[in-house]
């Protein structure tokens, strides 16, 4: 049995060595992996990744490829599951990919990123926002999505700048996401010179916010920013208006749901604002227009979500790095993305990475509830 295991080990290692050995031959196509939940509960998102990346690769190949070499896309379906993700990552590495776009959810991205880091494969996730992912010191890991602190920055700038609010109340619900967003918003608000006059949590599942709002009414804020979920957000807004609180009500992206308006009632929801990633059709960069048109022409439907656009950006960033460095060496690629590339014209806006691989800037937008109870882009 021991002997058998040893033989297997040797075989596996030999295979791995040959796989690595054949990695970079100038005549071969450049292999780029796309990992995501192509089946399972998030199949829509994973399929969006594959479609976006495949379409762009075919466009590039039709124009003669990168530096004269063709791009070959290799798919990996991780079903959003961390166990599957490690298998998929191992398989992609064995097949000799130089870069990978994916995965969708942070739970799947995390184990995969360790494997890619070890194998020296450039790894760009379009959608995994867990803060810890870029805290591991992996120099070849990047993301084209924005973290919650970016939404906090946007909300802080929007409330102090566009709305001109000086006194702001922050309400979260003690979940990791909502508390994190509220904490970041507080930091940025204070940097911008606004005063956080109220900072407290409500309890998810609770329906009576009278006690909290009575206290909030006393400090009379210019704006309220609620970072929790729509089911409480709608109630909070309604009860605030019932109590005669007239402060502008702003809520985070977990309130981007029609039920938010329905629970609050159109009368109360009218004029409420949410900060959120824009829906794909509201992005007005020329690159976005072209991408969405091409996507629609090719697949006969709209990209399912903003993450499809983000996946396209992840792929375009990889291509840009390979093209500019004339190399598939991960150190050169990573160095280019970290230090050289500034304001690359992405589909979701200018792309610049910081030293950790996180994206600078923000994609978030403000939407306001109109008289008919619909979210429409905010304009002055």
């Amino acid at each position, binding site marked *: 049995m021991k002997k058998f295991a040893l033989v297997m080990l040797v075989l596996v290692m030999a295979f791995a060595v040959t796989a690595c050995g054949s990695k970079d031959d100038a005549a071969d196509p450049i292999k780029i992996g796309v990992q995501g939940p192509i089946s399972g509960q998030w199949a829509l998102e994973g399929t969006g990744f594959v479609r976006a990346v495949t379409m762009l690769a075919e466009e590039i190949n039709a124009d003669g490829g990168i530096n004269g070499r063709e791009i070959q896309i290799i798919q990996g379906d991780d079903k959003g599951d961390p166990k599957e993700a490690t298998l998929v990552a191992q398989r992609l590495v064995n097949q000799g990919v130089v870069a990978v776009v994916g995965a969708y959810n942070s739970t799947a991205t995390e184990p995969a990123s360790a494997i890619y880091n070890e194998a020296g494969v450039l790894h760009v996730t379009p959608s995994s926002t867990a803060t810890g992912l870029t805290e591991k010191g992996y120099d070849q890991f990047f993301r084209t999505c924005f973290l919650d602190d970016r939404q906090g920055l946007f909300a802080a700038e929007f409330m102090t700048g566009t709305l001109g609010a000086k006194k702001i109340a922050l309400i979260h619900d003690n979940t990791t996401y909502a508390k994190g967003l509220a904490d970041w918003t507080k930091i940025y608000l204070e940097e911008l010179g606004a005063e956080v006059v109220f900072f407290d949590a409500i309890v998810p599942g609770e*329906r009576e916010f009278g006690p909290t709002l*009575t206290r909030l009414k006393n400090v009379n804020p210019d704006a309220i920013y609620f970072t929790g979920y729509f089911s409480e957000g709608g109630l909070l807004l309604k009860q605030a208006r019932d109590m005669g609180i007239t402060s502008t009500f702003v809520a985070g992206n977990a309130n981007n749901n029609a039920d938010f308006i329905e629970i609050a009632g159109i009368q109360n929801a009218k004029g409420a604002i949410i900060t959120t990633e824009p829906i794909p059709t509201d992005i007005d960069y020329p690159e976005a227009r072209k991408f969405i048109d091409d996507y629609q022409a090719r697949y006969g439907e709209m990209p399912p979500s903003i993450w499809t656009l983000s996946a396209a950006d992840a792929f375009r960033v990889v291509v840009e790095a390979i093209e500019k460095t004339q190399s598939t060496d991960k150190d050169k690629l990573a160095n280019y993305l970290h230090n050289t590339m500034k304001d690359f014209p992405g589909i979701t806006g200018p792309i610049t990475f910081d030293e950790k691989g996180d994206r600078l800037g923000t994609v978030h937008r403000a939407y306001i509830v109109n008289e008919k109870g619909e979210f429409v882009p905010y304009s002055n």
Partner: protein
Amino acid sequence: MEMFFGQIINGITIGSIYALVALGYTMVYGVLRMINFAHGELFTLGAYMAFTMIVSMNLAAYIPNAVVALIVMAVMVAGLVAIVGVLLERIAYKPLRQSGRLAPVISALGASIFLQNAIMLIWGANYKVFPEGVVPSITWEIGGVSITLMRVLILSTSLTLMIALYVLIQRTQVGTAIRACALDHDTARLMGIDVDKIIRLVFIIGPALGGIAGMMVGLYYRQIGFTMGWHYGIKAFTAAILGGIGNIPGAMVGGLILGVAESLGAGYISNAWKDAIAFLILILILILRPTGLLGERVAEKV
């Protein structure tokens, strides 16, 4: 000072809902010495039935007068939830009445899970939202404190129901029979009281009150979910213990105290600490008075 009164009003409103639900726990405990864990789900059922009457059956189209419509709806909700309550007792509790104290409690937990899932399967797992304007949104400003019409309705309905129940229990023959059953089933039977009938009656009154409370929560907050019974159930159960379980005025007092304590805690300290404060008060009262505020010290029967 305005804030203080505001918080007191918040507390009394939510407390009167707790009290209404607590009555169901305390009455069942009084006659059967068991905790009806499925009571929270009967409360949820009241909210969902009201939702169906308003949205699917469009009750308002048949009864143009809002006041009459609300009363008719309350009676129908109370009746339907009471039927479920009686069935619950007949199916889940009665066969176990002679089998010690633990079996009915387990059965009640099972019934609670069953009802919760049944509600989810019938109405779906999403939040349901009551339409606007079933109760006109009128707000009065009294000394800097805003009071909505719905709050006034909740308060007056709960108080009326509680007073009616108190009169029923203390002043009528049926009430005397209920109190007799609470003291001793066998002796009550010797006095010619049909104990089974009284237990059924308790499972009509308790669920009916719980159902009306659920309906009012639905009308006021307008957002209902199939798990809402747990939250209100646990609070009402606490209120029942606080006041002395088995004691009807105790449940009312317990509910109001719990509501006000929560409200002041959330208002002056932090909303996140609200439950901790409410339960701290419960612990203190139970240390000082193990039978609850109004609970009588009854010698254990051997």
